[in-house]
C-alpha cells in the first residue's frame, strides 16, 4: 500500500466513552499534553469548558471558537452537539486521526455507528469506568442500564479512581487497564478493535498497535493445557487476563509480560459470570495471512484449537 493510497483512506476514530465523572476529561487532558500524541491528531470534545489546555500549547483559534490549533501539530475541536459538522470540518483540515470524547450519557455502540462517516472509520472504543462507584451506578434506577451498556460495548476498559477501591475488577472479557498504568496513553493511542475489517486496510495497520483477542471458554480443560498455552504465547502478547475453568478448579489468570499468576477461586465463592481469556498483543499485526506465516505466531483462532477440550 503506497503512502498516497494510505492518505486517501479513512481517518480512524478512537472513541473515549464512559459515564459522567469517570475520568474522560482527565484522560483527554493527559493526551493533549502527551509527547506520544502523533502530529495530525484531532481531539474532539463535547465542550471546551472542562478541557484544560496549557496556554503555551495554543497556537491558533478559529473564528467561531470551535477549533483550537496546538503547537504539537494537533488540534482540539468542540462538537457542540453537531458531530457531522465537526467531522466535515476535520475532513477539510485533513487530520490523520481522531480521538473523540462521547457524551457521558451516550451508548458507545451508537456513536460507533456515527463514526462510519464519509472519510472516517471507527478504530476502537475505550470506556472509562469509575472504580469508586461503578457497582452502585450499575444498579442505579436511572442510569444502571446505560452504564452497563457502556461497559459491555467497550473494546478496552480504563478503570479510574482505583486508589479509592483497589480491589475493583470488571468481570467482563474485555481488556482492562488502570488509569495509573504508565503506558496508558500509548495503549489508548494504539488500540485497535480487531473485529473491524475496515481499519485493517488503513495506514495504521502497518504501525505497531495494540489489539485484544478474546477467547470465550465453552468446555472444561486441564490445568496443564492452560499452562502450556500461556508458556507458548508469542512475544507480541503483552497481557493475558481472565477466568478459566479447569478440571483442577477455576483459576484467575493474570499475565503481564513473562510474569504469570494463577489464583484458584475459593470453593465458597460463586463462579465468575464469564469464563475465558483476554489476550492483548502489541506489534505489526498486519493481515491474517501474514500472521500465519510466522511460525509460533499468535493468531486468534489458535486459542480455540489449543484450549478446547
Amino acid at each position, binding site marked *: 500500500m503506497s503512502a498516497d493510497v494510505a492518505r486517501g483512506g479513512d481517518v480512524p476514530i478512537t472513541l473515549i466513552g464512559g459515564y459522567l465523572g469517570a475520568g474522560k476529561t482527565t484522560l483527554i487532558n493527559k493526551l493533549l499534553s502527551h509527547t506520544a500524541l502523533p502530529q495530525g491528531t484531532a481531539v474532539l470534545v463535547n465542550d471546551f469548558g472542562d478541557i484544560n489546555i496549557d496556554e503555551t500549547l495554543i497556537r491558533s483559534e478559529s473564528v467561531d471558537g470551535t477549533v483550537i490549533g496546538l503547537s504539537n501539530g494537533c488540534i482540539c475541536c468542540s462538537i*457542540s452537539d453537531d458531530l457531522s459538522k465537526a467531522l466535515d470540518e476535520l475532513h477539510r483540515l485533513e487530520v490523520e486521526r481522531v480521538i473523540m470524547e462521547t457524551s457521558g450519557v451516550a451508548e458507545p455502540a451508537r456513536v460507533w455507528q456515527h463514526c462510519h462517516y464519509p472519510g472516517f472509520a471507527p478504530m476502537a472504543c475505550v470506556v472509562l469506568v469509575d472504580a469508586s462507584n461503578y457497582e452502585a451506578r450499575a444498579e442505579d434506577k436511572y*442510569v444502571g442500564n446505560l452504564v452497563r451498556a457502556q461497559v459491555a460495548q467497550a473494546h478496552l476498559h480504563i478503570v479510574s479512581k482505583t486508589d479509592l477501591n483497589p480491589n475493583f475488577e470488571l468481570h467482563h472479557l474485555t481488556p482492562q487497564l488502570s488509569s495509573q498504568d504508565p503506558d496508558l496513553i500509548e495503549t489508548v493511542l494504539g488500540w485497535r478493535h480487531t473485529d473491524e475489517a475496515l481499519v485493517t486496510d488503513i495506514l495504521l495497520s502497518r504501525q505497531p498497535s495494540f489489539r485484544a483477542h478474546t477467547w470465550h471458554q465453552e468446555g472444561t480443560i486441564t490445568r496443564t493445557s492452560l499452562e502450556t498455552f500461556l508458556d507458548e504465547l508469542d512475544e507480541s502478547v503483552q497481557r493475558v487476563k481472565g477466568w478459566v475453568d479447569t478440571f483442577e478448579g477455576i483459576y484467575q489468570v493474570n499475565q503481564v509480560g513473562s510474569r504469570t499468576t494463577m489464583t484458584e477461586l475459593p470453593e465458597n465463592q460463586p463462579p465468575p459470570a464469564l469464563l475465558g481469556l483476554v489476550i492483548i498483543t502489541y506489534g505489526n499485526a498486519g493481515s491474517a495471512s501474514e500472521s500465519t506465516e510466522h511460525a509460533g505466531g499468535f493468531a486468534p483462532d489458535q486459542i480455540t484449537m489449543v484450549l478446547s477440550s
Partner: protein
Amino acid sequence: MLTLFKARSVITMNPSMPRATAVLVRDGTIVEVGEPEHMQPWLEGQQYAVDEQFANKVICPGFIDPHLHPSMAAVLLPMEFITAMRWKLPWGEVEPVTDAAAFDARMQQLHEHKPADEPLFIWGYHQLWHGDMGKARIQQISEQRPIIVWHRSFHELYMNDAAMNMAAIDPAQIKPNMQIDIERGHFFEVGLGFAINRLNPWILAPEKYAEGLKRLKQVVHHGGHTSIGDLATGMFNLDAEAKALTEQLEGDDVPFRTRLVVHGTRLTQGGRKPEEGPAMAQELLRHNSHRLSFGRHIKLFSDGAFFSQLAQMQEPGYIDGHHGEWLAAPEELERHIRAYWHESYQIHVHVTGDLGLELTLDILQKMQDEKPRFNHGFTFEHFGFSTPEQIRRIKALGAQVSANVYYLHELSDSYAQSGIGYERASQMARIGSCFAAGINTTVHSDFTMAPAEPLNSMWVAVNRINHAGDVMAATEKLSQQQALEAITINAAHAIGMADITGSLRAGKRADFTVLNDDPLTCDPMALRDIGIAATVFEGKVFPIP
C-alpha cells in the same frame, strides 16, 4: 379612545363572570367586560366607537401555545407538506395522504406546479402510510429536478440524483456501513447531518430562514394565537435567533407576543458553569421589547425524543427491549435545576417518559427539601407518559403540566402495537387526572411536532380519538371548559403571563380569539373545525381571511 366590542357571546375564563356580551377596550387594555348597559359610566363624556363586526361571533380570550419552536418551524415551513394527518396551513389545508399511490400523485402535482429551476423539498413522509421510499421512486417523478423527501420525524431524508448533484454529494465517498444508503438516496442519523450540511444553502440561508419566520407568523396568527412560548430560545444560536426573531416577530403587524425561554444548557455551553447561568439569563431581560420578552424562566431537558421512542421508560419498558436516552446525565440535570431553583427561576423541564418524569420529580423533591418554594411554576413539558402516582407527586410538589396532547392522536395506535403496549399507550397525556388533582395544566403543539392549532389540541384533549378512530382512556378526556382553560388561562400561567392575558377581565390586555361557533357548547367532534374569524391583539383587529 374607547372601543366597545359586542359579540354573540364573550367567554371570559374569569370564573366570577364566565359569560358576557361585550368588552370595552381602551389603548389595548380591557376596562370592562360585561353587558353594555353597565359600561355607561366609562362612556359618558368620552369619545368611543362601537365595533359590531363580531356581533354574531364568539369572543374568547386569545389562544396561547405555551410551547413551540419558531426557529425549527422556520426551517420546515418553506417546504411542501405531504402528510398522513391533516395540517391546516394559512396557504391551504393539507389534506391527509394515507397511501403510497396518493403520495406519488401529490409529489407529481407539486413537481408540475413548481418553477423548473427550483428544488422541491417535501416534508411528512412516513413509511407506515406511504410505503417504502427510495431514490428510484423519486426519480420517477423527475430525474432533472432536485427532490428531497423528508421523513415526518425529521430524522431521515431521501433524495434523487439531481438533489445529490446539487448538494455536491459524491456517491464514491459513501461506504456500505455508513448511515447513508446511497443506492436508495437515504440519509439518517449522522448521515442526515452529512446531508443537511450540504443542503444548508437551500434550507438555512438567512433569506430562507426569514421567509420561514414570515410563514410562522402567519401560522401562529391563523391558529388563533395571541401569545406563544418559544421554549428553547438559543437552540441553534442565541444571537442569530434573537436577531431574526426581532426582525420578524416584533412590530405593529405582528398579532402576538412571544415569551422567550432560553435553552439552559446551551446558554452556559463553552466553559461557563451552570451556576453562572441565572445571571446570564437575567442579562437577557435587557433585550426585551414589547412583543418579545424573556422572563425569569429557563428550559432544561431530561429524556429523549418522544417521536423516536427515546423516552426513558420505567419497567416494563419497551416491548422490543430497547432503552430510551437521557439528554443529560441526571447529575448534570440536577446541577442545572439547583442553580436556577435557588435563584427563584421558573424552571421548565422537557420530560417524555415516566422514568424521565420520575427523575425530574426526585430532583424537584430534593430542591423542595433544600429550599422550599411556593408558586414556583416548575413545569413538566411534553408529559408523554406518566403514572397516577406521579400525578399526586406533581400536585404535592406544587408543579404544573404542559402536555403535548397530540401525541395521543398521532402515536397512541402505533405505540400500542410496536412501542409499549395498549395500556400505557392509551394513557399517554394523562391530563384528565391532572385537572382532577387541581394541577395547573395546559397543552401545546411543540410545533412542528403537532399542528399549531389550539382548537385541534382542544379537540384531541376532549375526544381522545387517535388517528385509527379509537377512543383512548376515555376517563382522561377533558371537558370543553377544561380544554379551553388549557389553551388560555392555564397556558398564560405556564409562561408567566397570567397577569396580562389568558382571560378577559378589567385590566388585562385586549387579546381575543374570535370564533364563528361556541367552543363550549358545540359538538365536541366539531371543535377543530370551528372557523376563526379574527384575532385581536391588544385591541387591534387582525382578520383571518
